[in-house]
């Protein structure tokens, strides 16, 4: 299946987001630093979605009735794409924090839990490299992928439950009559669409790669078994 339409839509919406975001009017409080609103919340949204898809795939693999390799591949693909978005969430957040808060980083609840999200995703990706046998790898990584999901609600509500430097939940501000200007809301929503499309395109390609890697692994395994058999035959002869 060709993904050109999805890729094209992702690229066009991403360019539009950047054009709209970079031309937003400066605000009184934050001057032009508020322009990061077009990308940072959207990147964070995708980081959450990627983490959630990894956990959902892991859950569906762990339930015997729904167990299929497709769920493990989906979890693996989403985790790797999630690493990129979670790292970008931390970098763009730091670049916004420096001029507005005065620091690139502080160990408050929201930021620490976001860093933990990245560590958990990297751990999941690393864990998949430990075991070569496909079924065992799927089982072990599904348990890890599902256990890790507890960080998502914790991080989402961190800004409500604890005092942090980070503002409250961004999506609440999208509602009509909120203090956020309509142009900012539009730019933020466009960013959500663009980043979601980019994530979907990357996910499809990463999934395909997972299938290709598994096939390659099977070929290599069969070749190795054939080689050992040939050695054994030589010894017997």
């Amino acid at each position, binding site marked *: 299946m060709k993904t050109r339409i999805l890729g094209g839509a992702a690229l066009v919406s991403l360019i539009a987001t950047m054009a709209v975001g970079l031309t937003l009017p400066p605000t009184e409080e934050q001057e*032009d630093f508020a322009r990061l609103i077009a990308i940072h919340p959207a990147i964070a949204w995708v980081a959450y979605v990627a983490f959630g898809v990894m956990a959902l795939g892991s859950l569906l693999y762990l339930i015997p009735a729904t167990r299929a390799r497709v769920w493990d591949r989906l979890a693996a693909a989403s985790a790797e794409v999630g690493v990129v978005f979670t790292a970008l969430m931390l970098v763009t957040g730091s670049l916004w924090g420096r001029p507005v808060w005065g620091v690139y980083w502080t160990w408050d609840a929201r930021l620490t839990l976001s860093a933990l999200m990245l560590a958990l995703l990297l751990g999941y990706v690393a864990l998949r490299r430990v075991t070569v046998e496909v079924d065992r790898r799927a089982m072990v990584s599904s348990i890890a992928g599902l256990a890790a999901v507890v960080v998502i609600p914790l991080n989402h509500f961190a800004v409500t439950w604890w005092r942090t430097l980070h503002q409250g939940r961004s999506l609440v501000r999208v509602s009509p009559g909120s203090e956020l200007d309509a142009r900012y809301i539009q730019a933020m929503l466009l960013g959500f669409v663009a980043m979601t499309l980019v994530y979907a395109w990357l996910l499809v390609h990463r999934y395909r790669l997972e299938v290709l890697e598994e096939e390659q692994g099977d070929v290599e395994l069969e070749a190795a078994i054939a080689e050992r058999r040939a050695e054994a035959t030589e010894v017997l002869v």
Partner: protein
Amino acid sequence: MSYVLAGYGVTAAALALYTGYLLRRERIYRRPK
């Protein structure tokens, strides 16, 4: 403005690099042996 440009620049660069990396890996596996 430099922080804003850095944020947009890093985002564009990271997404472009990861896309290139994925497509390259896919091409290597699809290469006829």
